């Protein structure tokens, strides 16, 4: 039976070594470029008509724009529209990565924790810097909830700090675990189809069909969750409490 984890192997396509650092162009890099190219193609081509009455493609692009715009408005605030381009790019990138990863023979780079963690730590650092720039030292009152007795501070403050530091970890693990678990499960069931033969093979095949639909849901949901949590973190840093 084929190894269900084989699909996550990173293969070097073009070896590049810069001063001892392995910066090779891998299949992960290739699919990241595909995702960026896919987003760009989708948005540019579908908005080319700029029709007052949108075509199907144009309304898909407008829908995704509206979706994220209202998410930013509701969760971060009307004055914070300047963060919209970043959040929109983030959402489209993750969404396209997840969806492209569902194609047979493709590679899902969001199923690698280093990729999701890199995105999460960038967001975490950015949000923290925004918070410190906005509130100066007042930002650190974040770690001392108001109305708590002073006696509790030595325990509560470290707990709050650990809780704050766990944000990028939970953000990245959530996306990575969902994508990897789903893809592994699909491969495991697919591996049963041929060995069970023409009589029993239908059952795992049916499961795989259902899983494919479920994976589409997960691809959208996880892109959404990652984005909305970014919005919530941004909101916390801007408005404190």
């Amino acid at each position: 039976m084929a190894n269900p984890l084989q699909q996550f192997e990173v293969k070097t396509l073009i070896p590049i070594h810069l001063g001892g650092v392995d910066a090779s162009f891998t299949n992960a890099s290739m699919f990241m470029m595909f995702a960026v190219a896919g987003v760009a193609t989708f948005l540019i081509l579908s908005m080319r008509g700029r029709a007052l009455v949108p075509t199907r493609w144009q309304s898909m692009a407008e829908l995704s724009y509206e979706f994220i715009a209202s998410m930013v408005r509701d969760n971060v605030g009307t004055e914070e529209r300047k963060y919209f381009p970043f959040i929109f790019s983030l959402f489209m990138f993750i969404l396209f990565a997840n969806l492209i990863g569902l194609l047979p023979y493709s590679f899902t780079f969001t199923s690698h924790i280093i990729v999701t963690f890199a995105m999460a730590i960038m967001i975490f650092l950015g949000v923290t810097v925004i918070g410190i720039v906005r509130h100066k030292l007042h930002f650190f009152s974040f770690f001392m909830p108001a109305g708590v007795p002073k006696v509790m501070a030595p325990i509560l403050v470290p707990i709050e700090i650990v809780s704050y530091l766990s944000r990028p970890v939970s953000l990245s693990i959530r996306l990575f675990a969902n994508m990897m678990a789903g893809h592994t499960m699909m491969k495991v069931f697919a591996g049963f189809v041929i060995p069970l033969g023409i009589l029993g093979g239908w059952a795992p095949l049916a499961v795989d069909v259902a899983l494919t639909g479920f994976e589409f849901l997960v691809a959208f949901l996880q892109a959404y969750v990652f984005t909305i949590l970014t919005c919530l973190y941004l909101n916390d840093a801007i408005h404190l409490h």
Partner: protein
Amino acid sequence: MSEGKHLKPLDDLNVRLSKAQAEQIPPIRDGITSQGGSMSGFGVAMRIGVELIAALIVGVGIGLLLDRFLETAPLFLVVFFFLGAGAGIMNVYRAASGLGLAAGYARLPENVDDDGDGTNGRT
């Protein structure tokens, strides 16, 4: 968007614009609980579990690093293991009670109806 009455000339455009903008004052923070109403049970379980584990990972990580640099072998590992566990429980509590993932729970009492119009969030 309402149609029809927008055939008016532009003279009261400013008034209409500011009115429309005033209506857009957002219900801040009603994040994942109200929007993710369609989230499956599996998704919720996943989220809660990850929350717990992540804090523990961070706590143990900090403990191990401090021990390595200060050479106080198991002391900080033990301390930060419990801090991490506490933070994990706190994260789970926040996620489950729909407070998002905010550090600090000062928001808890006034969060129930933050725009004061008795609608609790989205209008």
